[in-house]
């Protein structure tokens, strides 16, 4: 396949960036999107140009490091995948593809397509844990039976990979889907209920302090989430927050 790539290039956080056009051919439909960018970069290096910087690591859809906004969609046109799992067979010969970073006030650009998502970590520092010591001196795991339905829903929320697609997709740059996934994981488990009120208040406060927007229920985040994290989690977080606020 022959393609035209229009890629966001930005030298560093301070300089302004722009879209630069790159033609590329001999793209195989079996390539992953990132392998296509590898080929582009190999060519740029051989020509003496600066290769395009992009985040990636596991290349199997679980680490959450890759973060491209492709033709106006986080992780591109396919559903239920991260950018590294997106394959070129989703595109046609002759296509023009726009590639941009995940954009949000709380995700400043580091270089080209690489953004700083440490705001997500700081929200987790504020309360994304159960305050139990790691000494192993706890009760036997099977002394707390957990309803399978709750355990499964907790697991579903816990599969969030923290990539930030929800934020990049949201017109308000809201992080509600991300934060509510962690709040829900613990709120659904008996172990997490003990400090549930403090957790939701602290995490939401930190989310606001980082400059993420609010949720207006458009549901775009759920559509673009590579792991299918449900909007129900946002509803649950709102309920948890409300209850905690009036306590």
């Amino acid at each position, binding site marked *: 396949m022959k393609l035209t790539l229009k890629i966001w290039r930005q030298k*560093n956080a301070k300089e302004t960036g722009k879209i630069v056009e790159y033609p590329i051919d001999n793209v195989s439909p079996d390539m992953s999107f990132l392998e296509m960018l590898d080929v582009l970069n190999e060519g740029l290096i051989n020509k003496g140009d600066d290769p395009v910087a992009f985040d990636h690591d596991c290349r199997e859809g679980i680490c959450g490091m890759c973060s491209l906004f492709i033709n106006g969609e986080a992780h591109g046109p396919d559903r239920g995948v991260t950018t590294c799992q997106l394959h070129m067979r989703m595109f046609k010969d002759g296509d023009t593809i726009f590639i941009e970073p995940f954009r949000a006030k709380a995700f400043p650009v580091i270089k080209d397509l690489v953004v700083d998502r440490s705001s997500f970590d700081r929200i987790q520092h504020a309360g994304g844990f159960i305050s139990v010591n790691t000494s192993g001196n706890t009760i036997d795991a099977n002394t707390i039976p957990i309803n399978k339905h709750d355990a499964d829903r907790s*697991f579903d929320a816990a599969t969030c990979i923290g990539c930030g697609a929800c934020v990049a997709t949201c017109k308000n740059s809201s992080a509600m889907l991300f934060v509510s996934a962690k709040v829900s994981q613990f709120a659904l488990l008996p172990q997490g209920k003990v400090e549930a009120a403090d957790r939701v208040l602290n995490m939401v406060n930190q989310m606001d302090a980082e400059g993420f927007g609010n949720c207006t229920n458009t549901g775009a985040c759920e559509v673009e989430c590579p792991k299918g994290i449900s909007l129900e989690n946002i509803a649950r977080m709102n309920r948890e927050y409300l209850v905690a606020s009036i306590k």
Partner: protein
Amino acid sequence: MSLDSKIPAGPISDKWTDYKNHINLVNPANKRNIDIIVVGTGLAGGSAAATLAELGYNVKAFCFQDSPRRAHSIAAQGGINAAKNYQGDGDSTFRLFYDTVKGGDYRAREANVHRLAEVSANIIDQCVAQGVPLAREYGGLLDNRSFGGTLVSRTFYAKGQTGQQLLLGAYSAMNRQIGRGKIKMHNRHEMLDLVIVNGKARGIIARNLVTGEIERHSAHAVVIASGGYGNVFFLSTNAMGSNATAAWKIHKKGAFFANPCYTQIHPTCIPVSGDHQSKLTLMSESLRNDGRIWVPKSLEDAKAIREGKKKPTDLSEAERDYYLERRYPSFGNLVPRDIASRAAKERCDAGFGVNKTGEAVYLDFAAAIERYGKDQARIKHLDENDMKLVKKLGTEVVANKYGNLFQMYEKIVDENPYETPMMIYPAVHYTMGGTWVDYNLMTTIPGCFSIGESNFSDHGANRLGASALMQGLADGYFVLPYTIGDYLAPDIKTGKISTDLPEFVEAENNVREQLNKFINNNGTHSVDHFHKKLGKIMWDKVGMARNAKGLTEAIDEIAALREEFYRDVKVPGTLDSFNQELEKAMRVADFLELGELFAKDALHRNESCGGHFREEYQTPEGEAQRDDENFAYVAAWEYKGKPSEAVLHKEPLVFDNVKLVQRSYK
């Protein structure tokens, strides 16, 4: 220098308890005056950092990713072993110990493995208390599955994302300590050298990958938890950034490197599709619980399938060769990984491979779908002879167990594995070898510890499935926090270590010089060009089957490639900026040395054991032929300027509790 493994005296089941009762402790008031550096934030590093901080030490943690949550432990799929015996199927600490020693083909240290088995049950308690959502049954209790090389169900899991859930558990424990200021987290940082002061590890030189700044960090002890070196093969199931730099730098500063040739080639990965390939994707071993592995019985059918003239579903049962069930009736599709991988290679080499490249076998779920479907039909009082219904019900059960893996396969290969068998082939996955450590998990450099995959200690020559997660968390949560205290007890009066010491200045200058050399090299080929070449040599000559001739050639070829790399590599960009090519150059430079030592180790070990298969040493049936008389030792290599001059030290392996026999899964 002779190796002292410092294994405590006494019966094996009392060693660890007795050891803990007699070590030196650091009192809480003194702990806050002690700094510890932890490099890597996977299961081992993350759990260690959290626990050490909780105990009161000041922890400085480092990872090259943008968040500790992205360490490659996140990608582990299948599960974690623990001798809980919740299923009442005869499991015990001794059995887990025994299975692990046997699974490692009798090349692991008994005392370490027993300790691992002892603490395994506690890991599950800990993780559940942390809110890790492990799979449960309808009664609300934890579920188990079975994994290769064992006859009990001791594997705990969270669908196909067990590593993710356990890592997020350790990450949450870290977050609690970061929030309390006890862990200072350095994301997007890479350790580029170890600093030794008066014979003790006292700090590291790290590069801030965003600004390019070279930083000095001091501490009273340094813990390396940087994972394995599978990426020496270029193509592996490791993450793109997974590297051996931290482990290799400490090796060059005096830490012995043990058993580099023990590498696990995992049998169930998605086959290579073309030259553009950047990594290989694992399909969890748990799939072998329900999937049956086969190739066509006749060469003609295999050829027709390769040419696209026949489909796998066209072949009747009689035309299929379920070769694992045929060769190993008692373990069947659940033989350990090394055996399953070699058996796949044997069939493909003989011409029975099934994809375009001829390097793939089938993993078929049709029988499982039918079996589960019939069960469901019976339970629901429906017609179990209605094959359409049975298939629908069975597919639901299989989707519930492995849904995410099937989806991953479909996205990559563009085939529906519910309808047609998966194609799989072995790929490099895990490295059992690593920095040599004693019972305290300390390397041969005082104050420098190595935990998780980066050390060599628990898996011998082959790791059993679901044991890596167990070892990483055991080391980080339950072992290192004790052993490091014993080391640090005499250090309470040392005070802060200054980063202005000449040792720091010198180490920083060396790092800066190497980085500058790459930037100013102006060669003609990219880093990947050399990395791919190295990978090809490793896979062809140091891969699943090795022989003396190939290994000798590999050693020369790698040395020549390394020379060419330094002469001709091209690294664009600058030192003081975000520069991914420069990061890669530093990592590949280390792989180019490690690869040579790897081949040298494989050449010296004139036997076959576990993941190390020398063609010259096999039984008439083609199984690995160990030589216990001459090779029942750990090969620990000392760096002497270049890999070819590395000096071998032997730690004899003594087996008092397990009898050495020819490993059999028949």
